[in-house]
C-alpha cells in the first residue's frame, strides 16, 4: 500500500474513535435531557421525533461506513490492476452523501423547532454545535481527501477509474429508463 493509504487509514480511525462516539453521546444526552422530558411545550413531540430520526440516521450511516464504505476505500488502494470485482466507490460515496444531507436537513429542522422552545435546551443546542463544528467539518475533510486521492494518488486513481465504473445510481437508472 502507498503512503496515502496509511494516511487514509489514520483518518478512518479518527472518525471511528473520536468523531463518531462524540456525536453518538451528544445525541443520547440531548434525548435524555431532563428539561426536555419534563417540558409540556407544544414543540416537545416534534423535537423528540427529530432527535430520534437524527439518532437512527446517524447510527445507520455509521453502520454502512464501518462495514462497507471504509473497507471499500481501503480495498481500492490495495487492489492489483488485474482485480475484477472492486466496489463502486462513486455510488457508495453518493449514497453516503445522501445520508449526510438527510442528517443536515434534520439538524436544520431541529434548530428551527428550538427557536420557540420553553425549556433549557443547552443539550440540544450542543448537539447542533457538535454536529456542525465536528461532524460536518470532519466529513468535508474526508470528502476532500477522497477527491485529492482520485486526482493525485496513482494507485487509488488507477483503481477508481479503471476498475470502478463511475456511473452513479441515478445515471444507471436514467439509462435504464431510456432503454425501456
Amino acid at each position, binding site marked *: 500500500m502507498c503512503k496515502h493509504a496509511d494516511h487514509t487509514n489514520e483518518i478512518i480511525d479518527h472518525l471511528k474513535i473520536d468523531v463518531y462516539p462524540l456525536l453518538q453521546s451528544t445525541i443520547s444526552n440531548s434525548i435524555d435531557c431532563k428539561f426536555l422530558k419534563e417540558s409540556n411545550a407544544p414543540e416537545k413531540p416534534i423535537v423528540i421525533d427529530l432527535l430520534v430520526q437524527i439518532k*437512527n440516521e446517524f*447510527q*445507520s450511516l455509521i*453502520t*454502512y461506513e464501518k*462495514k*462497507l464504505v471504509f473497507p*471499500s476505500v481501503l480495498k481500492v488502494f490495495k487492489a492489483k490492476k488485474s482485480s475484477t*470485482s*472492486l*466496489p*463502486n466507490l462513486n*455510488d*457508495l460515496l*453518493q*449514497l453516503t452523501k*445522501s*445520508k449526510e*444531507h*438527510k442528517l443536515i436537513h434534520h439538524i436544520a429542522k431541529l434548530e428551527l423547532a428550538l427557536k420557540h422552545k420553553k425549556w433549557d435546551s443547552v443539550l440540544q443546542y450542543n448537539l447542533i454545535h457538535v454536529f456542525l463544528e465536528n461532524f460536518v467539518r470532519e466529513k468535508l475533510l474526508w470528502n476532500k481527501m477522497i477527491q485529492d486521492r482520485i486526482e493525485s494518488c496513482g494507485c487509488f486513481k488507477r483503481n477508481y477509474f479503471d476498475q470502478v465504473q463511475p456511473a452513479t*445510481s*441515478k445515471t*444507471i*437508472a436514467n439509462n*435504464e*429508463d431510456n432503454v425501456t
Partner: protein
Amino acid sequence: MGNDLKEAEDHIVSLSQKNVRERMAEALLFLKATYGFEDDQKTINVTLSREEIADYVGTSTESCIRLLSEFNQDKIIAIHGKKISIINLPLLIQTANIED
C-alpha cells in the same frame, strides 16, 4: 378527540413503515455498490443471511423477511434463497428516496 388520536397513530405508523421501506431499499443499494452484480447483471454478488440484512437496515429479522417479501411482490427484487436480484433498479432508487 378519539378520531384525532387514531389519525395521529395511523400517521405515525404510516411514516415508520415508509421509513423502514426506504431503509431496506437503501441497504440493497449499498450492498449493490459494494459487491456489484454477478454475470447476469442483476444478482448482488454477496450471500447474506436475513439477520445480517436486518442488521444493515436496523430492523428485526421478522420485519426484514416481510419487507423483502413485499419488494419481491412489488417486482423490485427477485429472491433465490439467500441471493437477491434487483429487477427494477429505478424503482429501488425511488423507494430509497436518495437525495442528490
